[in-house]
């Protein structure tokens, strides 16, 4: 498969994995291994004085970390979280999540756009989790985001692609890196996204909440590879009528 370049770094895998909701750390590590991912995302939370705090020690260090601002509702909150993440993980990369409500977890596009500008000024490499609005994606890309990350349906819903036409428009309008971030339910969703020409997929719930996360992680890996190979080899044009694959010429007779 063709290599992926993000911020000057080369990657083999086009699948970014989330690290939440796994039954335990062993299952998480096995799933990450099976997924073939090289980049994993993680959050920043208050130190728990009576619980586990060594998440980072338990996760395999070979991964590239993409910290996120999950759960942030305001620009101020997101910027401080991003700065804390940079200090913690020694990376300028930040997946900016700025949501508007707790029920739908949908991104707040206005607050997101303003925060993106501010973070880029502060030297962050922003991966912007946003709604599947082509204009917003284009504006974020023009602002200097490393990658735009539209959702295909709400986080953790597993509803899959809700607006394929918008995704086609996003791919057409944005020439840079685009990952789909949320809403993937099954491997065919990941494959379809890659067939549409997206650069990669970020997923978490569809693997972590499945009955067998390591196997589902492998299924997602193969789906991403399959979709990408399909896209790169040039999909045929759709036709409303049948186009015979076997010629009529040389047929024995018309009885």
């Amino acid at each position: 498969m063709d290599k992926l370049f993000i911020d000057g770094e080369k990657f083999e895998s086009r699948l970014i994995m989330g690290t939440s909701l796994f039954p335990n750390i062993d299952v998480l590590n096995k799933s990450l291994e099976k997924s073939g991912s090289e980049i994993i995302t993680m959050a920043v939370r208050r130190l728990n004085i009576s619980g586990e705090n060594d998440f980072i020690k338990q996760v395999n260090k070979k991964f590239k970390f993409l910290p996120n601002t999950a759960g942030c509702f305001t620009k101020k909150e997101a910027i401080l979280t991003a700065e804390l993440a940079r200090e913690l993980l020694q990376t300028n990369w930040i997946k900016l999540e700025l949501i508007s409500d707790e029920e739908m977890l949908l991104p707040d596009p206005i607050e997101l756009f303003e925060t993106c500008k501010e973070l880029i000024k502060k030297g962050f490499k922003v991966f912007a989790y946003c709604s599947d609005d082509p204009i917003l994606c284009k504006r974020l890309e023009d602002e200097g985001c490393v990658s735009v990350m539209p959702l295909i349906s709400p986080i953790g819903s597993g509803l899959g692609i809700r607006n394929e036409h918008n995704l086609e428009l996003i791919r057409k309008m944005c020439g840079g890196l685009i990952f789909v971030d949320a809403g993937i339910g099954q491997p065919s969703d990941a494959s379809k996204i890659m067939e549409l020409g997206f650069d990669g997929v970020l997923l978490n719930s569809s693997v972590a909440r499945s009955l067998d996360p390591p196997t589902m992680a492998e299924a997602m890996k193969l789906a991403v590879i399959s979709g990408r190979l399909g896209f790169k080899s040039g999909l045929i044009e759709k036709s409303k009528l049948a186009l015979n694959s076997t010629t009529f010429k040389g047929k024995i007779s018309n009885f």
Partner: protein
Amino acid sequence: MVWKKNISFFHPRDLIYNFFVYSKIMIIEKNFFINGLNYKYKLSDFDLSCLVDKFIEKKGINSQNIAVALNETLIKKSEWKKTKVSENDRIEIVVPFAGG
């Protein structure tokens, strides 16, 4: 008279000396909001480094694996010792956490 030689009389010099000695012993207790909860600490030096050490002591947490914000501003590790903390300051101490 021999005993008179051992009597030490009050001298301003002693006052200054005693201030420096006892200020280290009579440590003041201050209140802080750490990760949203109230904590009272007696510290010899009210700098951020001391406060963080006090908070994480005996919890098996390495200070290399945490990041700290003071009153909603990130304070880099290299600045902890130079940063003074005051009564009722709001401190956030964070770690990497599973997330998607």
